């Protein structure tokens, strides 16, 4: 262990809070060898970020204190220091110099009022004494190293002029400025789309290999771990649960927690050859049987054709419409009773707007929406209200989708009261029944949202959506904000409800592995259009559209034997969906490559 670059021994960090000191991590020990990538993985509250911040002693700025333990770091000159006792000047000479760090949010990691050049060079000035032309030359070199196109122009730009992926590259370039011996990456791709994630992961891996630096990679995503790690440290509630080489952790996990974590992660390709969605095998719970095929399947419930939704871009003192955001552009699809259709795509592709347009929470410009005999777009306010009984929505953010000032019982009862479906004791019985259906104790009804966990809130949101016995539920990223184990439980619940009541789901998601698990059919969206639609097998086993292929290729697989780190040079600037007033886009035309498998014919 004397050769280790970093040796953490018995680390304990406490935060002072209103209720006295709270221990965030305790008895954490592991080491990082030079040139090695160690992934620390855990769910929220596991202490993984605190551990990484302690290494830089940045916890102190967040009210934390290293109470116990040693953090030995071997410096470039061969001497070893204990970070926990180093003085402020020594710490500054480590930070940004021998240890670089990148953070989760590329949108807020850069100072909005300084140019890229200034932010790239101030580390060089402090640690290397570089100023003026030599500093600019090094900054350019760094931008080239992280493969940013037109680096000369970027130097003069401000952060808001760059896309999220580009900003994260700048943050990485900043961390690399002084050629650190250790790079700490704290969830560096969590806020990014999957294709950008693939590029950034590829970039970090290449930089590591080119420079021989060690990487401490913090993540909640087992698939990313499988792609990146040499060794893995699994954390839970502030302690290390298990540590070992990546292959060993994935193939022979020793601890129950690790096993449960792995079981809850859907692996892309795991559903190959299976006819229908299947619940996730959850550790501790009995293996659930595949839901029986719905007898009624085959009857069309929802028929969307040529749907167009645009948002006006207004400007000027008179608020005139100067342009439109073409959020949904000529989208058509159908959904059967008891079926799950997934809409997948990256942020801004129009998948959420499609869902909200169907409910007319936003007003579409044209197209038809047929739901079980209703022509949704032609309905007046009274009929629309009635039609909405048949379709409900579950939203992404479990913290924002419940009114913080109302009891849960009242929120679940609200649709029933609105439609006059039940009153008095019948209402109470119905609400209790709904709580039971989403596997929550009935006495939760008297609580307020802040008393519940994220997963529990999402169950309440589902109960509210089920209240009117809808035929269609639009789930808009409904599990994206949840920890993996909770996510698996909610997904299983949704599949069980579908089997039991013949529900149809429009499942809107960015997560290909989850989509593969839960859906019968899949529509891939890009820039407001469906570029490819077909059965799960057609999309995952025989993708035809280049975008679908790129998307699938970018998804990290939770299996260290299937590593596919990408060449990080691919750059696809996303075309803008904003067009001036009067712009007439081409209609979406499709080639039917197989029965039910449509591929967009436009480029």
């Amino acid at each position, binding site marked *: 262990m004397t050769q280790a670059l970093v040796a953490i021994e018995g680390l304990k960090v406490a935060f002072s809070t209103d209720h006295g000191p709270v221990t965030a991590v305790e008895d954490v020990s592991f080491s990082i060898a030079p040139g090695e990538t160690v992934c620390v993985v855990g769910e929220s509250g596991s202490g993984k970020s605190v551990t990484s911040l302690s290494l*830089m002693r*940045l916890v102190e*700025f967040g009210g934390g204190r290293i109470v116990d333990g040693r953090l030995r770091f071997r410096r470039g000159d061969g001497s070893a220091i204990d970070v926990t006792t180093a003085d402020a000047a020594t710490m*500054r*000479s*480590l*930070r*940004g*110099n021998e240890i*670089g*760090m990148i*953070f*989760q*949010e590329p949108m*807020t*990691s*850069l*100072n*909005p*009022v*300084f140019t890229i050049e200034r932010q790239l060079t*101030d*580390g060089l000035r*402090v*640690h290397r004494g570089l100023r003026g032309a030599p500093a600019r030359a090094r900054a350019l070199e760094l931008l080239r190293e992280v493969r940013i196109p037109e680096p000369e122009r970027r130097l003069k730009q*401000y952060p*808001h*002029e760059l896309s999220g992926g580009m900003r994260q590259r700048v*943050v990485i370039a*900043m*961390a690399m*400025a002084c050629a650190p011996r250790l790079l700490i990456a704290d969830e560096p791709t969590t806020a990014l789309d999957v294709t950008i994630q693939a590029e950034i992961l590829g970039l970090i891996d290449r930089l590591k290999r080119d420079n021989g630096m060690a990487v401490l990679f913090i993540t909640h995503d087992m698939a990313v771990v499988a792609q990146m790690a040499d060794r893995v440290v699994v954390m839970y509630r502030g302690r290390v649960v298990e540590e070992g080489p990546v292959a060993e952790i994935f193939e022979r996990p020793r601890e129950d927690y690790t096993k449960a974590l792995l079981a809850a992660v859907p692996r892309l390709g795991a559903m190959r050859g299976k006819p229908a969605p299947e619940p996730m095998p959850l550790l501790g719970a009995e293996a659930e049987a595949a839901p029986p095929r719905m007898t009624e399947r085959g009857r069309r419930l929802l028929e969307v054709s040529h749907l167009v939704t645009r948002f006006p871009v207004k*400007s*000027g*003192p008179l608020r005139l419409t100067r342009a439109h955001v073409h959020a949904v552009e000529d989208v058509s699809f159908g959904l059967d009773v008891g079926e799950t259709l997934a809409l997948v795509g990256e942020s801004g592709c129009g998948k959420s707007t499609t869902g909200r347009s169907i409910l007319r929470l936003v007003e579409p410009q044209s197209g038809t929406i047929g739901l079980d005999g209703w022509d949704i777009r032609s309905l007046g306010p009274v009929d629309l209200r009635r039609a909405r009984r048949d379709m409900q929505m579950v939203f992404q953010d479990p913290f924002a989708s419940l009114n913080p000032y109302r009891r849960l019982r009242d929120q679940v009862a609200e649709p029933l009261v609105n439609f006059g479906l039940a009153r008095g004791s019948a209402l109470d019985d119905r609400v209790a029944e709904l709580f039971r259906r989403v596997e929550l104790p009935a006495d939760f009804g008297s609580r307020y949202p802040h008393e519940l966990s994220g997963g529990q809130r999402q169950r309440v949101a589902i109960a509210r959506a089920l209240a009117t016995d809808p035929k269609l539920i639009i789930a808009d990223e409904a599990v994206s904000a949840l920890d993996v184990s909770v996510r698996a439980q909610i997904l299983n619940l949704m599949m069980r409800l579908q089997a039991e009541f013949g529900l149809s789901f429009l499942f809107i998601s960015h997560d290909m592995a989850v989509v593969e698990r839960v859906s019968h059919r899949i529509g891939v969206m890009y820039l407001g259009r469906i570029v490819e639609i077909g059965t799960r097998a057609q999309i995952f086993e025989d993708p035809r559209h280049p975008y679908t292929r790129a998307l699938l290729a970018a998804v990290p697989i939770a299996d260290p034997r299937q590593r596919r780190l990408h060449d990080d040079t691919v750059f696809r600037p996303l075309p803008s969906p904003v067009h001036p007033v009067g712009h007439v886009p081409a209609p979406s035309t499709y080639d039917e490559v197989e029965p039910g498998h449509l591929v967009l014919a436009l480029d």
Partner: protein
Amino acid sequence: MSFLINRLLSTLLTLFLVSLITFAITNLLPGDVAMMIMGTQANPEALEGLRQSLGLHDPMLVQYGHWIGGVLTGDWGTSLIFKAPIGDLLAQKIRASALIVVLSMGIALAAAVPLGVWAAVHRDRWQDSAASTASLLGVSLPDFFWGIMLILLFARTLGWLPSSGFADPAIDFPLALRHAFLPALALGLGLMAHLTRMTRSTMVGILNQEFIRVARAKGLSERTVIWRYGLANALGPVMTIAGLQIGYLFGSIIVVETLFNFTGMGWLTYQALLNRDLPLIQASVFVIAAVVMLTNLVVDLLYVLVDPRIRLE
């Protein structure tokens, strides 16, 4: 560029509405203007004569057109109490009051920004509590109370500065400064307290942002992190808040100038209100609102200099 044009057009529109509201408040409220001016005991013929000369029998719209036409051509009418052209009166008084306003804003900003940053850096510690208690006390005292205290201390007890009086800055600037200093300080103390609170909360928000952590992770010193990275981001918001306080200052000068017998814009407005000098009320209320709006316009345009994100809009 379109940002600039939009902002200008919007200001012009609001300015027009401001003139309408000024006119409406001074005309549509109940009460006979002529009687307000001459008192209830005035003889009926004199009242009728005044009504005629003020054009009170014309329809409202005609009266408004008459007034706004005068404003646009520089003919603001004649003050009833000062028997002088209002345009000349305003020109002289606004100079003097601008001196007070600029001086008090300068005093307030010079103290509030460092103090607010200091409190934010020591957030939740005794320094923060002390600064927050002091600034709370500051915003809780009326300006005229500060004024009286300053008169007691600097004029009566120490005898350093005059407690009342006025000089035109265009004629004798040093003397004008001597007369303006105490009123400006009286205004500045309350303002300083307010701006300290605002700077503190702005900085607290900024210091919690990710890019501050990134700056620390780069090995920059705390001084650089706070006074360069942090403050550069706080400038815009603090400037906007300070700009909004210009309105507050132009309200408060009415009280403070009266207290110090500083015969500036505030004093003039007060005399007009007290004596129901209708043409002068309309003119001074409109001018004050216009000055406040234009100052805010300038602040908005300056914002572009400190925040590169605005340019794109």
